[in-house]
C-alpha cells in the first residue's frame, strides 16, 4: 500500500539530504534550500489543484509568511528559525481563515482573479509602508535554531537542515491528509460538487479547509525563503511570482507530494541555467519549457514518473 511507501520514501530522502548537507558544494545547498522553500508553497498549490482550484494570488501567503518571519526576527526579537517559521504559518493561517470564508464560494477563473486582487492589494500596502522598506523590503537574519545560536558554517547547515526537515514534515502531513477520507474529498469536489453534497459532505467546509491548508503551506514556504535568502520584499506577492507557483504546480503534477518538491528542483535548475547561459533570452527559455511540458507532459513531470512505473497516471491539473 502506498501509505507506507510515500512516508518511508520521504523520511529516507530527507535523511539522505541531511547526510549530504556537509559534503555537497555551497551552491547545491542553496539550490536545495530554494527548491524546497518554493516546493512547500507548491505543495499548497497542489492541495488547491486537487480541489480543482488554481490561485493567481498565492504570492499573498508566500509574502505574508516571509514578512511575518521577518518581523518576528527584526521587530519582535525572535530571530529564531523555528519561531520565524511558526510566525509565517500563523500569519497565513489567520488571514486565509478569514479570506477563505469568501473565496471558498468561488471557482475557476473567478477564484483565480479574486485571489489575484487580494495579493495585489497586499502588494500595494507593502509598497506604501516606508518603515518596511517599501519596494526595497528589508534584510532578515535568523540567529538561532530552537534557542541554539548558530553562526558561520553552523548557520549555513542549520538553515539547510531546518528547510529540509520542515519541507519533509509538511509533505508527510499533507500526504497523510490527502489519503484521509476528508482529503479524498478534494478530488471528489473537483469532479462533481453536486454529488459530494448529495453524499452528505459540505463542499464549502472542505474547500475552506483546503484553502487554509494551502495558505499555511505557502506561509511556511515564505518563511523558509526569508530565512534562506535573508531578504524579503513586496515582489513576493506580485503577480508573476504567483504565476510561477502555478507554473511549477502544473509542471510538477499533483500525483504525489513528491511531485511539487521535485518539480521545483527542476524548475530552479532550469531557471538558474537559463539566467547563466542566455542572460538575454532566459524568459524565452522558460516559456518554451513551459509549453513543452504542457504539450508533452499534460500530467506534469510526475506523470512521467508514474508512467515509468507503468501505473495509471493519476496526476491531473486543476479545474
Amino acid at each position, binding site marked *: 500500500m502506498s501509505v507506507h511507501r510515500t512516508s518511508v520514501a520521504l523520511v529516507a530522502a530527507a535523511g539522505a539530504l541531511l547526510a549530504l548537507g556537509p559534503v555537497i558544494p555551497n551552491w547545491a545547498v542553496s539550490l536545495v534550500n530554494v527548491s524546497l522553500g518554493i516546493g512547500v508553497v507548491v505543495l499548497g498549490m497542489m492541495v488547491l489543484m486537487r480541489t480543482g482550484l488554481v490561485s493567481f494570488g498565492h504570492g499573498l501567503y508566500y509574502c505574508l509568511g516571509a514578512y511575518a518571519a521577518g518581523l518576528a526576527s527584526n521587530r519582535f526579537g525572535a530571530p529564531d528559525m523555528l519561531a520565524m517559521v511558526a510566525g509565517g504559518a500563523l500569519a497565513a493561517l489567520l488571514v486565509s481563515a478569514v479570506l477563505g470564508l469568501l473565496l471558498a464560494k468561488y471557482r475557476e477563473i473567478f477564484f483565480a482573479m479574486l485571489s489575484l486582487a487580494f495579493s495585489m492589494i497586499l502588494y500595494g500596502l507593502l509598497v506604501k509602508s516606508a518603515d518596511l522598506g*517599501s519596494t526595497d523590503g528589508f*534584510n532578515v*537574519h535568523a540567529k538561532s535554531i530552537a534557542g541554539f545560536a548558530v553562526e558561520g558554517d553552523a548557520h549555513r547547515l542549520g538553515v539547510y537542515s531546518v528547510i529540509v526537515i520542515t519541507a519533509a514534515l509538511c509533505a508527510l502531513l499533507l500526504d497523510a491528509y490527502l489519503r484521509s477520507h476528508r482529503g479524498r474529498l478534494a478530488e471528489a469536489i473537483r469532479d462533481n460538487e453536486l454529488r459530494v453534497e448529495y453524499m452528505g459532505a459540505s463542499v464549502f467546509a472542505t474547500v475552506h479547509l483546503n484553502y487554509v491548508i494551502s495558505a499555511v503551506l505557502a506561509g511556511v514556504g515564505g518563511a523558509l525563503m526569508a530565512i534562506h535568502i535573508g*531578504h524579503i*520584499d513586496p515582489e*513576493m506577492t506580485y503577480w508573476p511570482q504567483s504565476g510561477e507557483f502555478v507554473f511549477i504546480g502544473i509542471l510538477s503534477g499533483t500525483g504525489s507530494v513528491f511531485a511539487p518538491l521535485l518539480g521545483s528542483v527542476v524548475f530552479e535548475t532550469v531557471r538558474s541555467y537559463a539566467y*547563466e547561459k542566455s*542572460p538575454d533570452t532566459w524568459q524565452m527559455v522558460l516559456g518554451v519549457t513551459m509549453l513543452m511540458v504542457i504539450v508533452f507532459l499534460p500530467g506534469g513531470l510526475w506523470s512521467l514518473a508514474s508512467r515509468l512505473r507503468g501505473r495509471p497516471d493519476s496526476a491531473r491539473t486543476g479545474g
Partner: protein
Amino acid sequence: MIKAMKPSRLAAAATAIVLALGAPVLMAQQKTSIKVGFVTFLSGPAAGPFGVPARQAAEAIVESLNAGKAPAPYQIKGIGGLPLELVVIDEAGGATKQVSEYRTLVQRQEVDFVIGYIGSGDCLAIAPVAEELKKLTVFFDCGTPRIFEEASYKYVFRTRPHATMDAVAATLYLLDNRPAVKRIAGINQNYAYGQDSWNDFEATIKVLKPEVEIVTSQMPKFGAGQYGAEISALAGANPDVIHSSLWGGDLEAFMLQAQPRDLFKKNILVLVAGEPYLHRLPGKIPDGTVVGARGVNAVFAADSPLKRWLTDLYKAKAGIEPNYPAYSVANAFLGVKAAWEKAAAKKVGSAIPMGANKNVKEEMEKAYAPPTQEEVIAMFEKLSFDTPSGKVQMSLGKGHQAVTGTAYGTTRFENGVVKVGNIKYYPAERVNPPEGVSSLDWIKSGFRATAK
C-alpha cells in the same frame, strides 16, 4: 648604482617596470585572467535607460583596459596586468532570484569579484550574502543610503554616492537660483527610490525654507504609462516647482504627455535624474528645467583625459555620449583597479630588497603574485581615486561608501539640442552626511548633525 638606491625607491621603480611589462609572464603559472561577474538589468523597464548602457560601458571599458589603452594612472593592462573577462547576468526577477543568481555567480562561476546592481532592493539583499561568501562585491549604481547606514560590511563597496546627495543638491540649487519659490509639487514613482527621493527633497526644502507649501505629491505606480490625471492634478495645483525623480520610459511618457498640455508654462521642473534624457527628448524638455546627473557625470564632468577616454570608448560602442550609468560603471572598475594595483605595489614595496636573500626568484614570485582579496580590500577602504567624473573618495560606511561632489544645471534648447547652462558644483561634504549620521537625521538637523 642599484646599491645606492633606497629599497622603497627601488621597489617602486621595479613595480612600475615589472607590472607594466614583466608581471604577466611572471604570474603566468598562477593566474592568467580575472573573472568579473557583472549584474545589470537586461530586461524590463530599467534595461533601456540604465541596464544596457551599463553593460555596453562595462564591455567597452574591459576591452580598453585589457588593451592597456586607459590613460594614467590606469595604463597597466587589465588589472595588475591580468586581463579581465566578464560574466554578465540579468538583474531582472527580484531580490530573491538575484540572491540565488549571486550564489551561482560566486560559487559555480567562481568569479574573482562582482560588480553590479542597479536596484536598491537587490543591493540590500546581496550585501549580507557577499559577506557570507566573503566575495569582493562593488555596487555601481543603486542609490539607497540604507546599505551602509543600516549595517557595515567588509566585502561590499559602493563606488557611487548615495541618493540623498541628489535631493539635497537639487534643493540648494533651486533655492540659490529661485529663492522666491513657494508652492512645491512632486511626481515620483510609487516605489522605494521615488518615495525616498521625494521625502529627502521635501525634508530638505522644509529645513531650508520652512514657509514653502507642498501643494500636491503625485505617486503614480511604477510603469504606469498614462499620466493624464496626474498632469491635470499638477496643473490644477498650480505649483512654482515640480520635483520629479521619474526615469526611463516613465519620465519620457510623462514629458511627452505633459509638454503638449503646457504643464510647465508657469513653473520650474526639477528632474533629479534628468540628464540621460536631454539628448533623447530634444524640444520636449522646457527651457529652464533643473537637471542633475546623480553626480558630476556626463555634461557636468570637467574635461579630462579620463573623461575623453570614457566618451570615446562608449561612443565607439553605443554610438552616443555616455550617460551617468556609464560613468558609474567606470567608477566601479577603476576603483577596483586602483585598489588592486595599489595592493600589488605595496607587496612589492614591502618585499625585502633584492639580493638580500639568495633565492631572488622566489622573492620576486612572492612579491609579484597578485594580491589576495583581503589585501585589495585593505587598499580599497578609504581609497581616493580618479575617475572620468573627478575624484571619488571612499569615505563613508567605514571606507566602503563613496562620496563625490555633484552638480546641477539649467536646460536651454538651442538649435536642435538641449544645452545645460548655469552649472553649479556642490562639494562632497556639503551634500553628503558625515560618517555615522543617517541621511534623514542629517537633513532634519539642518545639515549640522555629526556622529556622536
